[in-house]
């Protein structure tokens, strides 16, 4: 299955992209993250303890189920306000 992954702020800059398509056998958001971590290099940022994630533009936890075509986002802690 395919998902769209998007990055923001420090992650977006470090990865040099705002998003990408990813194909794999994903059941939950963490499977998507693990597939990226396996690519090593700058993707190791996604191992940060305080990483936040969203699925289809709703904040979620790493055990959130993912489905074909979902938009999965990874970003550092938010700092608005």
């Amino acid at each position, binding site marked *: 299955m395919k998902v769209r992954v*998007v990055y*923001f*702020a*420090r992650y*977006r800059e470090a990865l040099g992209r705002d998003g990408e398509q990813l194909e794999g056998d994903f059941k939950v958001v963490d499977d998507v993250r693990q597939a990226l971590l396996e690519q090593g290099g700058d993707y190791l940022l996604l191992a940060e303890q*305080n990483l936040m994630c*969203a699925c289809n*533009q*709703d*904040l979620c936890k790493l055990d959130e189920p993912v489905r074909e075509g979902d938009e999965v*986002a990874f*970003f*550092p*802690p*938010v*700092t*608005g*306000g």
Partner: protein
Amino acid sequence: MGVRVQQAAFDPGLEVNAMHAANVGVGAVVAFVGYVRDFNDGREVAGMLLEHYPGMTEKALGKIVVDASERWPLLKVEVLHRIGALEPGEPIVFVGVASAHRQAAFDACNFIMDYLKTRAPFWKKENTAQGAHWVEGKQSDQDAAGRW
């Protein structure tokens, strides 16, 4: 109830007055305005860039407003957050809450800011004499949101 995410500046005074306009049932308006400071974490700040997650930002703020409306008897809520390049002294965020009595408005305004700080997808990048850097999330903000 309204959520606005915009680059343009806003006038906090006009926003406060609009909270009461045409509703004589409103007995209390509490408003929070956040501004860009010229100093943060020991560094002089020349300006900042506010990044956000288009689509999710509006959705996340909308959920926070609905959540607040379910917890307190509110007559009007307005959340306005700016994005893009901002300079010290400029307003970044406005949260206005109107209710019949003050306690609901005070509490709901506080709640909305605590949730916005920890759940709305905005990120600040500060420009300083030492270069530009991303502002780190604070544990104190997490703790503040946790009390609700």
